[in-house]
């Protein structure tokens, strides 16, 4: 089981801030493919991966990151702090 969290417009498009998934995806990219196949709202959120960033267990990483042993994956747009 893995926690998947969403922020900003990713959260709004998917319509929830967090969900718990049972997945066999080996990488973040496979997880994205799995989510896009589920419903239109995921397809809308993940249509353009270049507009998204990902963190695995609260560390920024890329879409090729492996999911073995991971507890939390977060998807969000580029950050706008400061």
């Amino acid at each position: 089981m893995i926690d998947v969290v969403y922020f900003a417009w990713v959260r709004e498009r998917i319509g929830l801030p967090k969900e718990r998934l049972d997945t066999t995806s080996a990488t973040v990219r496979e997880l994205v493919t799995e989510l896009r196949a589920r419903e239109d709202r995921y397809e809308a959120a993940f249509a353009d991966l270049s507009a998204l960033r990902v963190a695995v267990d609260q560390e920024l990483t890329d879409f090729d990151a492996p999911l073995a042993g991971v507890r939390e994956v977060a998807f969000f747009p580029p950050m706008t702090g400061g």
Partner: protein
Amino acid sequence: MAVRVQDKDFDLGAEVAAFCRGRADMGAIVTFTGVVRDVGGGLKHMLIEHYPAMTQAAIEKIEAEAVQRWSLGDSLIIHRFGALEPGDRIMMVATAAPHRADAFQAAEFLMDYLKSRAPFWKKEVTDTGESWVSAKDEDEDALNRW
């Protein structure tokens, strides 16, 4: 060295005074304060969302990098979240160093990284609707100078 992520406001003068009290080895203190701008004139408020499980650690990592690169005696980063109005303070950075070049450069470095690597997202709510603030290419490019 301190990082605070909070919804409440902060007092720049009090923070800087507390920060360097009783130290006579730091000749230079630089601060940056970010303020909510109302560019178009119709901004009602700015909503700042963040990733609570990640924010503190992500900022501490940026701060640790600055401490490693420059000769800093102390540093402080405060970033707010929640609903802010035009003119409200969003965040501040303070750096203290023996000499001004280190204090300035470390503050600019911290700001460049906070802009693009700290997990905050801003949404502007105006009279006519709401929209997420887009990251700027120039903010991403700014990281290349370090």
